Each structure stands twice: as C-alpha cells, then as structure tokens.
C-alpha cells in the first residue's frame, strides 16, 4: 500500500515544477502550459485525498478543475493570439509597455 503522503508529494512536486516554469520561461504559451501543470498537481492532491478519505467530493472537484482549465486555456490562448497580432511577439520579456 502506498501512503497518501507519496501522492501528495507527487502533486506538490508537479505544482512547484509548474510554478518554476511560470517564473522562468519567456514564451507565453509555455507559461500557460506551466499553469496547466500546476493545476494537474492540484488535481493529483485532490484525487489522492479523495481516495484516502473514500469520499467522492475530491474527484468531483477535480472534474470542475478540468473544466476551469479548459476555459482558462481557451481564453488565455485567445488573449495570446490577440496580443501576437498587435505586438508580433509572445515573449513576456518584450511585453512591458506598462510599468512603474
């Protein structure tokens, strides 16, 4: 039997890998993918708890997270496309018109 903390650690590692991706990558699309990684980390945590508690709420929550992730991806990619049309770049280091 695998203890729950193993699953939780796995979720945490993936969550943190995702957040490091957000902090280090320049390409907006990769940043978006890193956020998806973070959400996956959360989902692993939710499902692990659900399994441990023998309660389905966690799984249902995870389903909603997937739905939200889909919505965020759609909106985010649309925003990235609009940005690209306007600025011809998706490099976050070049997108700093607004500052100070």
């Amino acid at each position: 039997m695998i203890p729950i903390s193993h699953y939780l650690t796995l979720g945490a590692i993936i969550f943190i890998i995702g957040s490091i991706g957000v902090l280090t990558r320049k390409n907006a699309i990769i940043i978006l993918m890193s956020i998806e990684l973070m959400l996956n980390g959360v989902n692993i945590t939710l499902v692990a708890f659900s399994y441990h508690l023998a309660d389905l709420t966690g799984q249902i929550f995870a389903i909603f997270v997937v739905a939200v992730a889909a919505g965020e991806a759609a909106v985010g990619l649309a925003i990235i496309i609009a940005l690209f049309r306007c600025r011809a770049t998706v490099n976050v280091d070049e997108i700093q018109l607004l500052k100070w």
Partner: protein
Amino acid sequence: MLDYIWLVPTFPLIGVTINGLLGKRLPKKLVGLVACGALGLSFLVSVIIFFTLLHLPPEQRYLEKVLYTWISSGAFRAEAGFQLDPLSAVMILVVSGVGFFIHIYSIGYMHGDKGYARYFAYLNLFAFFMLLLVLANNFLFLFVGWEGVGLCSYLLIGFWYERKSAADAGKKAFVVNRIGDFGFALGIMLIFSTFGTIDYSEVFQAAPEKFSPGALIITAITLLLFVGATGKSAQLPLYTWLPDAMEGPTPVSALIHAATMVTAGVYMVARCHVLYLLAPISLTVVATVGALTAIFSASIGLAQNDIKRILAYSTISQLGYMFLGCGVGAFSAGIFHLMTHAFFKALLFLGAGSVIHALAGEQDLRKMGGLRRNLPITFPTFLVATLAIAGLPGFSGFFSKDEILWEAFSSPHGHFIYWLIGIVTAGMTSFYMFRLVFLAFFGSSRIETDRTHHIHESPPSMTMPLIILALLSIIGGYAGVPHVLGGANRFHSFLSPVFSGHHGGGDVVDPSASTEIVIMTMSVLVAVGGFLLAHRMYIKRPEVPAILADKARWLYQLIFNKYYVDEIYDFLFVNSIKNGANRLWQLFDVRVVDGSVNGIANLAGQGSSLLSQLQSGYVKSYAASILIGAALIIGYYVLR
C-alpha cells in the same frame, strides 16, 4: 429664536453654492453682494441669538439641536447636531462679525483680481466650515470643520498660484498641518473607543465619572488633541507654516490666519476643558508650549522687515498667550483674549493691507515711512490696534492680556515663570509693534520713487471695516473689566455656565487685590517701556544727529559720543537680541523646520520613485512576488 441656529452656517453655504457654480457668469457686483450678504445674514442671526441668550437665566443658556443620529452600531452611538452655549455664541459672533467686515473689505481689495468669484466662494466656504466647527456638538463635526477650514486655508494661501512662493507656502502649510491633524484624528478615535461616543455632552459627563485626575488615557487623548491644536494654531514646533501663509491675499491673512481659523485650537482646548482639567500633565504642556511660543515668536518678530511677517509672528505669539491662559486653567481668559485679538489683529492686517494696497504691493518696512499723512484713515485705526495689542490701558488688549498674566501668576495651575515669560513677551510685543508703526507711518519717506505717485487712501469699502474694527478694538475690552478695577467682568460671568464648576479665572474677588494691581501696573510699565525704546530708536535717533551736526563742533562731539553710546547700546542690547533672534530664526525656521518639511517631502518623493521601480513591467517578476509571498506565509505557519 435659538432653534434657528442652523441658519448661521447655512447662509454661507448658500453663498458658496451660488458663487461656486455661477460665479463666472454673474457680474462682479452681484458676486460680492451675495458673499457679503450671506455672511451678513449669519452675523445678524448670531447677534439676535446672542441677545436672546443674554436674556435667558444663565443656567438655561444651553441648547443642543440634534439633527440626526450619526452612528448607532452596537455600543457606539453618536448624534450629530449643533450645540449653542455661551462659548459657541461668542465664537459665532466673532467669526461671523469679523468675517463679515473682512468680506466687505475684500470687495475693495480684490477688485480687479481675475479670480474674484473663486475668492469669494472660498471665503464663504471657509466661513461655513468655521461656523460648523464652533457650533458642533460632537467631535466628528468639529473634525469636519477642522479639516474644512484647513482645506480652505490651503486653497487661499495658494490663491495666487502663479507665484512659486505662494504654491510652496501652500504646500508647507499642507505638510505641517497633516502632522497636526494626524494627532488630532487619533485623539478623536481614542475618545470614540474609550467612551463609545463622540458627543461632547456625553463625553464630558462620562469623563469625570469614569476617570480620576491624571488618568493615563485622558492624558493621551488630551495630548493628541493638543498636537492637532499646535498644527492648526501654529504653536511650537508646528508654527512655521503661518508666516509663509502670508503669501495669500491680505484679507485672507486677516480672517483665516489671524482672527479665526488659527484660534480653532484654542477654542478646542477650551471646549475640552473638562478633559484637560483631568490631565494636569497636559495642562502643563499646554501652558509651557504656549508660553514658549509666545516669547519665541515675539523675539523673532523683532528682527523682521516684512510688514505682514511681523504681524504673522505676532499672531503666533498672541496665540501662545491664549494657550498659556488655557494651560493655567483660565479658559475664559483665553477665550476673552481670543475675541479681543480677533478684533485688533484683523484690524492690523487690514490696515497693513491698506498700506500695501496704497504702495502697490510693497511690503518691506524699509521702503515705507511717513505714510501718516497719506493715509488719514488707515493710520489712526492702525494706531488704535497697535495700542490695543501693546496692552495700553483702556484698550481691549489691556484687559484680556492682563487677565491672562494675572492668572498665570495666581492660578493654582500657574507659576511665576509663566508670568515672567508673559511679561517679557508683552514688552517685546509693544516694541516691535511700535517699531512697525514708526517705520511705516513716521519719519521720512523711503518709498521707491516709482511707487510714490499713486499713494492714496483706500476706497470706503476698505476703510469702513477699519473704522468699525477700530471701535471694537477699543470697546471690546470693556466686556471683561476685572473686579479689581471696579468692573463686573461680564464676559467671564457670561461664559461661566460653560466653565462652571471649574476654575474659569477672574471671578474670584481676590484678597490680594493689591498684588493684582501691582502685576497690572508692571505690565503697563513694560508696554510703555517697549514704546519708549522703539520711539528712541526709530523716531529720535535718525533726526538728532542731523540737527546737532550743523550747530557746533563741540556739540557735535557730544552728539558723536552720544551716538557712540547709542551704538554700544545698540550693539550690546538691541543688536544682540536682533542678531540672536535672526540667528534663531535662521537656525530653527529655515534649517530645522523647513529642512524637515522638505526632507519629508523629498523622502516621500524618492521613496515613491524608488518603490515604483519595483513595478518593472515584467510579468515574471510579478509572479515571483506572488510566489515569494506565498512561500513566506506558508513558512510562517510551518516554521513557527
């Protein structure tokens, strides 16, 4: 009639509304009429109310008119409304009365200014807030008025914004007053959380029941409130904004920075006398700050050459007197001096304004002289005011200043030192005021030639208020003739319901009446001494050498010797004081206070630009900030 008390602040508010919104489109005459009319009506109502009050038996001279419930939340409750008692009656009379005359004066003075309507709108707005301040029945309304008059003051100091100095002065007033208001606001919040209410009557009733004298919380409250008062009433160490505030139009200086707004601190302390009497430490602080401010700024006044600046330092010094009075527990004496000071200081400023008007904007005393003949109305009225502020017998300043000095000497809260400082200050006051009069109105003209041709007396709209205020400066004092001079001190007995049960000062028919006479005589002597010294230095000396020089050589030698003596005398006594005062001014005013004001502003500005660099525009560093925050918060919970 008393129920119509709400009319008093309402009229100026109507004036603001009309002039503020339509002022640009109305003819100038109408603008002036509306503004003056609004305040005139307030004044009329105030007078009627005052006499109605006078006809009531003393214990019924109180009216609280609750407008509505401001707060009712759990244990906290406050009702907002107006409170009319002898204290606020005196205040509305002074504010609306002096305000009314200054409004009239402004019609002439501001004639031709492009911001005419704006000026009157601000002035009416000021009157509204000031009346609200003195009529409030709770600390919140007081604070409303307090902030409101500060705002108007700020707007009016910077009225001639084209001048950089005016804009700077406005900024300075703003920064310094922030510090004061900061303490004041905290004080009110402390009251609110201590008593659960901010109504005067409830607070003042609960305070003696709940706390014994010397209670720490009351001391904290009163000291915080006093911080606010030092800001608004220009006391040490927050006084420096006031001399700079003279950048505003002169009638504004007269109304706001001499007669009314700056006395708000004194009014507030007197209003909270119940609290102050419970906090002996705070009383000592008030008296000490008042006394020190009085002598300190009077000494600075000795060295100034700008006519309005002298008056400004004089105002600070006189405000110090009022706080001294309050600090020794003689609240009604403080208010009495507040009233007489409002008359003669307004008159002094308006007279100075008339001089400046005549000289097309010249404010330097060294470029005046001999104006006595050119300004036949301004001169005598100005002289009356000078006599009054110097405290010569028979003029209003004599009675009020003397009462404070006597209380400083004799009151249980008083001390010999306070009296000594007070009387030295009185001498200085007399000296610098007569110096001003001699330099401006006597002697030969030192006026620059291009200004000489249009020296003229001001129009009637300006001289009329001068005359009325001069009358008030004379008779104003007779409201409070002390018992020892055979008077009844009616002013004091009028205020006694407010300060009843406390030592209000003046009422005790003192067994040591002879001491009082001695004290009184000494202050008169000091005043006369100041006059003589000024006369010697600014009237006699310039003429004497010239006459003697062409008589005979041996005589001239004598004169030379005398002159020599004068020089030593000058060097030893006058100059050293002058230099000392100047240096003090340099050190304190320019370095410490200006320095710290600028320092604060610079620090804020630099901190601001530095911190805003953090906002680099890079979305990744924003994300890093979030992650750091998250790591720290979780770290707090885990590693603790």
